[in-house]
């Protein structure tokens, strides 16, 4: 596939923390305008891989290409230019807990746009209604439930209308109906804005629902990538064990 179809490419990424080799040669292409779900075991390096895509973590070896540009050796200025095309929803939303909901969602606008306070107020209300929230502008993050925090986090991630949104375990720790609601929200947001989404998950049903593509990370490498059907019918025993949630098989559980 060429760079035109792939908005992000990871090429032979190696990353170790101390003596622990987390990524051992990851190769992954993220196609433009679609949702790619990355599945894999908890603590298996999925978040580490995601953070490579936006330059929060630098690889020991390998290339990270965003629109064909290698971001690994970029300076602050270039990296900030690239980052403005991204939005990211963190695992626990990472809202600034000293600011209320409105200031959180308005933060990227105040930093990077010249909108007046009145316009900002309007945009914030609009983004919050997109994620199904209203009337919470003056609440502090500590007063919100986990699901609401994730919604606010998503509203903040889309304020600057990014081309790419990264979701770090958006449904982990939420109850099943709420997980389903968040999955639908991801799907709607992706379709409505036509963006590229990368979702980290170990919720396999959610992956089938939101993903156009699914990739599986196992032991530091991408061992399978394809459409939900291809993953479901994969010949790999590791993938089969994972997607069917079996305790027996090649994956060492304990």
């Amino acid at each position: 596939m060429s760079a035109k179809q792939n908005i992000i490419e990871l090429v032979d990424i190696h990353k170790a923390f101390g003596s622990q080799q987390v990524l051992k040669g990851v190769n992954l292409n993220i196609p433009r305008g679609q949702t790619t779900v990355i599945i894999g075991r908890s603590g298996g390096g999925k978040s580490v891989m995601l953070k490579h895509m936006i330059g929060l973590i630098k690889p020991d070896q390998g290339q990270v290409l965003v629109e064909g540009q290698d971001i690994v050796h970029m300076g602050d200025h270039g990296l900030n230019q690239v980052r403005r095309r991204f939005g990211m929803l963190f695992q626990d939303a990472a809202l600034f807990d000293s600011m209320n909901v409105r200031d959180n969602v308005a933060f990227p606008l105040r930093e990077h746009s010249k909108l007046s306070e009145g316009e900002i107020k309007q945009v914030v209300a609009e983004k919050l209604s997109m994620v199904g929230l209203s009337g919470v502008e003056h609440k502090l993050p500590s007063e919100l439930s986990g699901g609401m925090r994730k919604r606010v986090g998503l509203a903040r991630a889309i304020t600057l209308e990014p081309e790419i949104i990264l979701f770090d375990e958006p449904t982990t720790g939420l109850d099943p109906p709420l997980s389903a609601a968040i999955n639908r929200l991801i799907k709607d947001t992706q379709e409505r804005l036509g963006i590229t989404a990368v979702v980290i998950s170990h919720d396999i049903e959610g992956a089938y629902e939101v993903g156009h593509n699914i990739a599986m990370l196992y032991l530091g490498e991408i061992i399978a990538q394809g459409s939900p059907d291809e993953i479901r019918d994969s010949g790999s025993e590791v993938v089969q064990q994972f997607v069917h949630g079996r305790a027996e098989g090649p994956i060492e559980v304990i």
Partner: protein
Amino acid sequence: MRLLRPFEYVGAKFLAMLDEAGELLLLFMQTVLWLFRPPFRFKVLFKQLEFVGVGSINVTLLTGAFTGGVFALQSYHGFSLFGAESLVGSTVALALTRELGPVLTSLMVTGRAGSAMAAELGTMRVTEQVDALYVMAVNPVQYLVVPRVLAGIAMLPILTIIADFVGIVGSYVVGVHLLGINHGIFISKIVEYLEFSDISMGMTKAAFFGLILSMVGCYKGFYTTGGAEGVGRATTQAVVLASVLILASDYVLTAIMF
């Protein structure tokens, strides 16, 4: 092999210390760099000025007043042995402006604001709020560290001069009203011996201590790892390291300046 173990232990500790000093210095250099790059965030700066400065006034008033008072009491005891009670005021004034004002104020502010900086930045680090700043193309050193360090440098001299003044008032109350020193002599001896340079050098020291306590607080918070426990550890280490550095650098600065 067992004989070498103590050396390995000492060596490892020493290397870890060098590592830390290097990291602290790198963060300091980044802070200086980001200090001069736009955008300048006055709102965040004023918030920190208020937190470090205005928020520390009460503790500064109490520290200054009691230190001045107790110093008058103690030195009166010593001076009365050879009939030099008249020197109590000037002794207290000199000790306060040169030494006790800047050092005690800085130690109190370390406990109050330096620890809070470590805890706040540490929490932001472990809950990925620092990463969120990077993702939103805002440099966290510029957004978080620069205003705190500026506030430390700007506010400590002001707090120190407040402590100096309140301390002298405290010693006056104890010396003149409780111990019966003549009030004209008390004041005139202060005017005679206290020079402007005593005050200004004390304030210079305080600015330096402000840099130390804010820089160490931010450094410990900024590189926190390991969840809630890590935040606790960072806070404790920030207070201990900043206090030790303040006391050690006080000696060096005093030797150079006076």
